[in-house]
């Protein structure tokens, strides 16, 4: 077996043997699941509490300048007309009644003034809930038609078909989830592998094993095998995260929906997927070799951490300009972000997801990413070799770009 193969096998086994690896791989889906569960339970609880508050029986008096409030409904909820605002407030303060609602002439622009007895921060919310419910139900009664009520309440669904200039049907909206998924994979790479790359490239130095290693085999084989091993470990981690999702998709497929998005309508656009995968691989490769170069230049992972922050921030930075990237892709700043290697991945994947990245431009970006990764890899190998004997200092640009070692 070649030196590359021997190192690769050893490094993959090392990576998969680390507890931290499996904790990192399993933690993400567990954390996502827990957050989702908490959010779901919290939303249910909040909705339940709001409903209970709305249904909570208590006595109140009211004045209605709008003429919208239905007296019958108000009586059902425990209300009675008030004589005037001052006496109603006095009643609340003395405890004769629990609340007073003063509905303004135009509730759509003016607030409903409420006075109520304090029963607790959370429970005090029932007053607003009941007043709102009374007004909304009274308005529905006024409308009279259930269909009109549904329209007003926003219960209208749409089914949109858009056409491209050549007359074909556009699938940009339906293929959006796939494009976003590819972008998410890039972020996962940054999050899951960032720290590991630093550790992997500094540990020979920290363990003082670099000298023996470099006199036993060539540094190119070592660094290349380490990075490939890391990529393999990253793929394993992503499988751990996504295999359950894929199984769920296979089993429940058309019934899955996320936040109102019907996933059964997702379209797999071959061009989008091809471009997205190429850009993802190029961006991930560039990210990994850049961190490897930083790690190999530093005497320890701790000291590399500060310099590596830039390598992690740059791929994420375009998110702050996501709105203009998506809506105005021809702007000069978007062009710069598209072609600058360290921001190209995120920017291009965003544009690809929203269908604003032409094929030729996408292939050009992918080429830029792969060429940049190859150049940085050369620097990483040089840094690994030259940095192997530097236990106390960070390599400088002269060390990295100066006269090569044998």
């Amino acid at each position, binding site marked *: *077996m070649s*030196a590359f193969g*021997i*190192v690769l096998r*050893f490094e993959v*086994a*090392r990576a998969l*043997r*680390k507890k931290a690896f499996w904790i990192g791989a399993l933690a993400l889906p567990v954390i996502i699941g827990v957050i989702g569960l908490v959010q779901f339970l919290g939303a249910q609880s909040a909705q339940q509490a709001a409903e209970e508050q709305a249904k909570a029986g208590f006595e109140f008096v009211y004045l209605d300048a709008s003429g919208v409030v239905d007296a019958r409904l108000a009586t059902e909820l425990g209300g009675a007309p008030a004589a005037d605002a001052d006496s109603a407030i006095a009643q609340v303060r003395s405890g004769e009644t629990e609340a007073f609602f003063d509905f303004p002439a135009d509730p759509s622009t003016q607030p409903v003034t409420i006075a109520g007895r304090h029963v607790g921060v959370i429970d005090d919310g029932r007053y607003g809930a009941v007043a709102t419910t009374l007004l909304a139900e009274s308005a529905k009664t006024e409308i009279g038609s259930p269909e009109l009520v549904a329209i007003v309440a926003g219960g209208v669904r749409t089914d949109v078909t858009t056409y491209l200039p050549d007359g074909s049907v556009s699938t940009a909206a339906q293929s959006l989830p796939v494009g976003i998924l590819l972008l998410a994979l890039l972020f996962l790479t940054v999050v899951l592998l960032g720290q590991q790359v630093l550790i992997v490239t500094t*540990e020979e130095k920290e*363990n*003082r*094993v670099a*000298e*023996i*290693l*470099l*006199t*036993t*085999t*060539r540094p190119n084989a070592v660094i290349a095998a380490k990075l490939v091993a890391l990529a393999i470990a990253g793929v394993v981690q992503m499988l751990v995260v996504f295999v359950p999702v894929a199984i769920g998709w296979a089993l429940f497929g058309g019934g899955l929906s996320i936040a109102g998005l019907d996933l059964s309508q997702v379209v797999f656009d071959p061009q989008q997927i091809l471009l997205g995968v190429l850009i993802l691989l190029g961006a991930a490769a560039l990210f990994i070799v850049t961190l490897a170069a930083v790690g190999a230049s530093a005497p320890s992972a701790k000291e590399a951490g500060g310099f590596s922050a830039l390598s992690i921030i740059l791929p994420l930075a375009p998110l702050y300009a996501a709105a203009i990237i998506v809506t105005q892709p021809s702007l000069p700043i978007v062009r710069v972000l598209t072609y600058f290697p360290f921001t190209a991945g995120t920017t291009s994947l965003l544009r690809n997801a929203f269908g604003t990245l032409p094929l030729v431009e996408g292939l050009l970006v992918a080429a830029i990413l792969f060429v940049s990764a190859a150049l940085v890899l050369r620097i990483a190998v040089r840094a690994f070799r030259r940095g*192997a*004997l530097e*236990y106390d200092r960070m390599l400088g640009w002269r060390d990295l770009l100066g*006269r*090569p*070692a*044998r």
Partner: protein
Amino acid sequence: MPEQTDRTENPEHTLVEVRGFRMAYGATTVIDRLDFEVVRGETFGLLGSNGSGKTTTLRALLGLIVPTAGELTIGGEPYRPGRVRVGYLPEERGLYKREPVLEVMTYFGRLKGMTAGDADRWSRSWLERMGLADKARLALGKLSGGQQQKVQLGVTIMDDPELLILDEPTKGFDPVNQRLLMDIIAEQQRRGTTLVLVSHDMAQVERLADRVLLLKDGVARAYGSVADVRGEFGGKSLNEVFLEVYGTVGLEEDAA
């Protein structure tokens, strides 16, 4: 400058050759001009105080650093891993502390060109000899310092090296392991292995070495067989020669 015996009339006799070696870092010259040879089968002592350039010379010989000038060869060519079997015990030493002992040894054995089976068998045999057979599956970091040194020694000699380079071999070794190291060196000498021993322990080198080179300020101050070097300095021990070479200059500076 001491006369440096030229043995190139029989190049197959020479394993290590250093010609015109110079090493400078910016304005600082670590090695000014160095020429020496190491003959096959001999034990060669490279001596000098801290910072005299011994480790720099070794690193240049092994291709870890690029010399400013000169040519350093092993077996007639600049060193490349795999061309000549070299066992190297560096001054700064360590192995993968979180990995199992047996796996680390087998890994380096395979990198040195051994088959997986041979590397595994040799490693188990070595651990047995060192009384560490029951620790084969433990992480290396869980072993004591002395036990880790034994593992490191094993990694250094496991592929039956033609050339064994030991940089400050007894540094950090407890007395028990120093004894072990001496046994290993003696064993390698009996096998005809060429040894380059870097040390500032003169007494040790005097016992072990056939020829020596004493470095000071990047230049050879003494070079030749132990007997010849001692003879040049009036029959003094190597330790006294060292003190004379290093101590005399200090006195001259004071006088000036």
